């Protein structure tokens, strides 16, 4: 088990170093100078130089990167140039908001994605409606979904608020995050449903399932014991990838619902060349990806006896 965890951790660390280096170098080539805007229209040349010095813009690129990396190893992600604040304290509350949104969307995907994928097995007539709904669902871009959801459920029916952010209690936050989570979950849920349907269909066609049925076992029992168990592996993999994708998907949803999470902050920070913030958010994305895929791998091992035996021995 230790070896199982060591690989993704090392791989993740490698990915973080390479990706942060690339982003660091890329952003240094982006046009625009934060010092010029921070200094305002009346700054003298000397003031501007002093500010550049203060921001570390005058040092060579490798030195700047290494000092950033050194800071990160000590848990210091540096300062945000545009918010003039430590990156950690800037990100912590926003990360909480994004996490709430992603977890809610993820639950929706689990329930509706897998549930929808199982419907055709419950009744054959449901196959075509499910195919139709999931094909459409996969194709609806998040920003179109957001537009439609707000128009219907927030403005016409008034069931949910337009704004995704709230400073109230847990229930109030849930109410505010429902529409954004649905918009975020929609196409992923449809995708998971398609994968679930496909792998369940594959398993249902297998010999041992048909044998079990012919032996007179109940449909429900066969479905649970033979079909679902074996079909779970590919579903778990896709669900893992979904979780990683959701965090990136929050970029669009947070903008459309006025939510102050890390996704909307990323867009602002990239255009303001706030390198430390961009790097920190990128690291969060990478870590989320590594964690999600690793958890999915482990879940797969626990679910699939064949793989479990292989790893165990």
């Amino acid at each position: 088990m230790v070896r199982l965890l060591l690989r993704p951790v090392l791989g993740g660390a490698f990915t973080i170093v390479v990706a942060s280096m690339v982003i660091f170098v890329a952003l240094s080539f982006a046009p625009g100078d934060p010092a010029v805007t921070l200094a305002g229209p009346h700054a003298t040349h000397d003031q501007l130089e002093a500010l550049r010095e203060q921001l570390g813009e005058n040092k060579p690129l490798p030195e700047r990167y290494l000092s950033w990396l050194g800071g990160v190893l000590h848990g210091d992600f540096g300062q945000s140039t545009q918010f003039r604040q430590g990156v950690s304290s800037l990100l912590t509350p926003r990360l909480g908001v994004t996490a709430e949104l992603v977890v809610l969307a993820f639950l929706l995907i689990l329930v509706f994605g897998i549930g929808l994928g199982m419907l055709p097995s419950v009744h054959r007539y449901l196959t075509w409606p499910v195919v139709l709904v999931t094909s459409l669902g996969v194709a609806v871009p998040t920003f179109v979904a957001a537009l439609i959801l707000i128009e219907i459920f927030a403005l016409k029916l008034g069931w949910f608020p337009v704004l995704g952010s709230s400073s109230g209690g847990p229930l109030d936050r849930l109410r505010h995050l429902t529409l954004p989570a649905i918009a975020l979950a929609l196409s992923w849920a449809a995708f998971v449903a398609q994968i679930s349907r496909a792998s369940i269909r594959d398993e249902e066609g297998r010999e041992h399932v048909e044998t079990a049925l012919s032996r007179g076992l109940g449909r429900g029992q066969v479905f649970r014991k033979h079909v679902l168990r074996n079909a779970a592996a590919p579903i778990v993999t896709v669900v893992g990838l979904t979780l990683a994708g959701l965090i990136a998907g929050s970029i669009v949803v947070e903008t459309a619902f006025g939510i102050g999470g890390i996704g909307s902050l990323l867009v602002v920070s990239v255009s303001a060349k706030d390198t430390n913030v961009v790097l920190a958010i990128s690291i969060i994305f990478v870590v989320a990806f590594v964690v999600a895929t690793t958890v999915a791998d482990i879940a797969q091992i626990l679910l699939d006896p064949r793989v479990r035996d292989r790893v165990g021995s």
Partner: protein
Amino acid sequence: MHNRATTAQLGSRRLALGAAATIVALVLAACSGSSSSGGGGAAPTGSSSGGSDVVLTTPKASGPIDTLDWDLPYGEPTTVDYVKAADYGPDMVVSNLCDSLIRLEPDYSMSPNLATSWKTSSDHLTTTFTLRTDVKFWDGKPLTPEDVAYSLLRNLDPKNEPVNGAFFDHVKSITPKGNNQVVVRFTKPDELFLKEMATVAGQVSEKAYTESKGEKYGSAEGGVMCSGPFELKSGDWKPGQSITLTANQDYWNPDLRPLAGKVVLHFISDTSTLAQAIKSGEIQGAYELPPAILPAVSQSGMGTVYQGKSLQVFELGPTPGPMADQKLRQALGMVIDRKALAEVVFHGAADPNYTLIPPPAWDPSGLDIYQQAYDAIPHPDGKDIEAAKQLIAGDPNASKTIVLAIGAGNQTDVDSATLIQQEAAQIGLKIQIKQMQPLQFSTAFFDENARKGIDLMLTQGWVDVPDPLDYLGLIVLPDSYFNWLGLKNQTVARLVDKARSNYDDQQRARQITQAQSSYEPTQPVIPMLALHELMYMSKDITGAPASFAYIFEPSLATVGSAS
């Protein structure tokens, strides 16, 4: 994401510069304070000259409310330190938290605030402010002359990244005197200084607190410590979510004690989201309502959109390249249909403007002279295509592609640029639109290298106070910051210089209009529109100032119940 034109606004901001007339006219003088040096200019009362009806204030509120949900223009502020505030959002928040020495009223007149009076010596080298003695910071400590001197001096230290440092360029020293005075000494006379004391440059924070927070002062972590009508309590700026202001029940000025117990400031940066939040009632008020959603918000039946007096302009700034050709600038100025632009893109929330200085920014004391000069300038209606064509016939520059830069993600700018592009095509000018990222766009305002490959910048800017000189100084002088073309008009330079040292309002207006008749035909910028301030309030509330002066006022203190 439209996150969108935030810093672009910062880039286009024009600060008041140049000499000023005698100021301080007392209207709505809230407090007892004996007024100071003689009031020269009478305050304008109704709508400003030129264009459609705009208002200055809204009906007075009838009672208190518990909570007010207000949206900040252009998203989350990057700071609430008055020294660094250079954008709509930061200016608006900090002006509700902190008091300035002098107060700017909704009609752009000025009245005593922290300073009850001020006196300038006959050689104009010393100004003495007399301060109120009953002012307390939120933590209960009294406001002292040391706090005032310290706060003003912070604008001079580059470490604080001051944006208004230039207003202190002529300052030699600022020292506390006795228990209620502050003395400012100048290296040379600077009448602009007094005017700026009514903006964020004249605000005061507590010395002990500010020093203890260091670099973090004004951030979400560090907060601020001021004496204004609202208080920012620790932890009430939730990054990414909202800033909550709490009423300061002990505010020294009883007329401005907040009617709202709490104000929640939201950071909606997406235009559509804002419209939807207004329609659903989640947002009760907002300044700088994007014109694109004016019809939607007006028709929603949720409240009223006020069109207030504003010193904001909408224009095209030419940079070296084909647009250095005066004929091209003139021809383009002739084919732009300003009325259509104001009606279709701005939904009527703007007036055509034909000069560098928009009518609302005229000095109130010389209105007749400015109006006469304005009427004498051609007002092209965009219909005389033939004349414009003839003007550039055979001109080799007319066949070059002109790159028009706009800030990314602003639908009003995109639509405006699209119309200008079509209108230019009528006379054979090829315009290519280039959307730039906010930082890149704002850098282009200050950095020559960033303007390479750009021929025109679509600009929205503002003037701090109504005085043509502060705008002229930025554009038409040979060494002006925004004289991108490097035009060297010595006649204009001489007249503007003379006007600066001229204290006779009428004479100065004549000198300025004389300069105008010299620079205007060369089109240093292509003027298009004078904008209105668009402010929304829902049916249940009222009382906010409607004019653009809101950015330097405690604008939310007077907002209360409408019934």
